[in-house]
């Protein structure tokens, strides 16, 4: 308890409170601009944190990280463009609601689910750190290369299974995403794949180039070539508080989704991408009207938002407990930890317990502050989602813009064909994880059986088989029912 009070005391200073406020409000605005996202924002802010106090730097970055997860739901819901792949599934039901003229309902549900997911994860993460922190090292040791590969493979299977009416097309596009992920020099074995002697391709495609092209530019092309008589419905009618009331009608979905987000956030390297598909597929399986998923089902939107917002706090757990950053954003935060002379790991509980409490309480304050900001200012924030993206910022490279335009045109064609866009991006993300982990673990894989002979990978493989069997049986039933 003493450490808890010390933690609260650390936060009670003007610079820290101002950093929380700037991080929270700024993160929402950054998240709302498609293609900018928390990764770029934190990368821009990182050099500036050198001049700030340690706790001020961390709460500023945490503010941007945590609040941008709320912000990215705005373009996903209103203009069918997710700010990051993490909330790609929000577009399915959120945008469908917008098209029905229920944009305010979609946004309020997204805020409520995000708030629940965020708080759930923070409180659980805090409890887990207090109770089991020192033992998490053992859990981390259970996850080897093959286990993470299998977890990513499970994510792929769930993604494809979630596209119930378009599973073949989703699988095809996922494979295309994986193919794009293979392009470039394989760092571990120094093999050039599909580079054709072109210098640009040696580094592979930047994920942001693909995301901005496939989602944002293709959407811009779609709007530019469309008729004025059919603009996207983005008018906000009605209050933004009612989502909190509606959330009470879906207690199971929101709790399970927040749980998935928390558990997946803790697993390094897989977390946020897989969590939303686990949650979405589960919500669909639990739903009495699975046919409405992708057409504005509230439980679909809740599943996606609750799970992705549960990830930031959960992702701090392996970083703090094991010193293992789960993804790019926590890796960036690790830089600040090292600058502050704090070494994340099991010893952190003995040496910097008050610092830990400060971080988690700051996250809790950020969640409350962001929801209040959004309830008051959403009608102004929605204006910035129409701001064009700035691709020069990624690698300051003209070629990035060219490829983004190319991916934009590909995305436009897919939109014309009414094919889903998400599998390409997730194929790229999960594909890279699968390829990296498979390559890194290849020395231990002599036969296919070696992939599944570990406790975790074996269990995940059984889950994959169960998902496939379940999908096959339900598809067959659905087909019989339709005929």
């Amino acid at each position: 308890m003493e450490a808890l009070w010390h933690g609260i005391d650390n936060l009670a200073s003007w610079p820290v409170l101002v950093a929380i406020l700037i991080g929270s409000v700024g993160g929402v605005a950054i998240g709302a601009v498609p293609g900018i996202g928390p990764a770029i924002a934190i990368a821009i802010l990182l050099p500036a944190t050198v001049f700030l106090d340690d706790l001020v730097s961390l709460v500023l970055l945490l503010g941007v990280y945590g609040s941008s997860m709320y912000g990215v739901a705005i373009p996903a819901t209103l203009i069918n463009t997710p700010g990051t792949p993490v909330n790609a599934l929000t577009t399915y039901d959120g945008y469908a609601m917008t098209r029905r003229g229920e944009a305010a309902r979609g946004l309020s549900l997204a805020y409520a689910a995000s708030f629940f997911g965020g708080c759930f994860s923070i409180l659980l993460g805090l409890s887990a750190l207090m109770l089991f922190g020192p033992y998490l090292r053992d859990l981390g040791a259970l996850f080897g290369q093959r286990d993470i590969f299998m977890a990513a493979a499970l994510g792929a299977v769930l993604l494809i299974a979630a596209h119930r009416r378009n599973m073949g097309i989703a699988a095809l596009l996922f494979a295309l995403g994986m193919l794009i992920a293979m392009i470039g020099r394989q760092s571990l074995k120094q093999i050039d794949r599909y580079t054709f002697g072109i210098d640009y391709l040696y580094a592979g495609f930047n994920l942001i180039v693909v995301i901005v092209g496939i989602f944002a530019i293709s959407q811009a092309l779609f709007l530019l070539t469309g008729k004025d008589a059919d603009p996207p419905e983005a008018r906000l009618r009605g209050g933004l508080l009612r989502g909190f009331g509606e959330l009470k009608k879906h207690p199971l979905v929101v709790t399970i989704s927040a749980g998935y987000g928390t558990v997946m956030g803790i697993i390094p390297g897989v977390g946020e991408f897989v969590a939303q598909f686990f949650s979405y597929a589960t919500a669909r399986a639990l739903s009495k009207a699975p046919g409405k998923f992708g057409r504005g089902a509230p439980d679909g939107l809740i599943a996606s938002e609750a799970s992705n917002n549960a990830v930031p706090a959960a992702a701090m757990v392996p970083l703090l407990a094991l010193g293992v950053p789960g993804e790019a954003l926590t890796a960036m935060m690790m830089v600040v930890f090292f600058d502050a002379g704090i070494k994340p790991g099991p010893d952190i509980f003995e040496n910097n317990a008050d610092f830990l409490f400060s971080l988690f309480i700051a996250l809790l304050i950020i969640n409350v502050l962001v929801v209040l900001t959004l309830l008051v200012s959403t009608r102004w924030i929605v204006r910035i989602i129409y701001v064009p993206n700035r691709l020069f910022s990624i690698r300051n490279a003209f070629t990035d813009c060219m490829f983004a335009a190319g991916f934009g045109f590909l995305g436009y064609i897919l939109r014309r064909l009414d094919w889903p866009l998400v599998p390409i991006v997730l194929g790229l993300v999960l594909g890279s994880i699968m390829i990296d982990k498979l390559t890194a673990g290849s020395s231990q894989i002599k036969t296919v059986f070696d992939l599944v002979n570990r406790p975790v990978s074996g269990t995940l493989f059984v889950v994959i088989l169960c998902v496939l069997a379940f999908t096959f049986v339900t598809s067959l039933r659905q087909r019989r029912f339709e005929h």
Partner: protein
Amino acid sequence: MLVPAALWNLYGSVRAYRWRARFQLPNGVAHELTQWARALEFVAWFIAYTMLVPVLGYLVSTLLLGTALPWRLGYRGARWMGICVTASLAIVLVFRTGLQIKPPVNIWLYDQLPQGLSTFMKVWF
């Protein structure tokens, strides 16, 4: 693998063709290709903009795109142009001046300006 995939694609195409014919939707290849060509025009606009940035700088290029593209789409007149110029300026101020997003290192137009002004433009616009 390619043969079954191609056959599956052919089957899907035939079904889509019948479905569109049933609802009397435009079904010709020419119609779809025209839509794609229309999108390519805007891809060209985007590429032209990214080519202009190293020559004219972020400020002038954004102002040009922000006014010329709406003009091309039919949003003409003093009121629309005023809105476009204001919006373009706001974008530059937020992203370049505020967030300091990096444009190309060498900008031809800024290099032609006097030393002090050139440095100012390179830092802020």
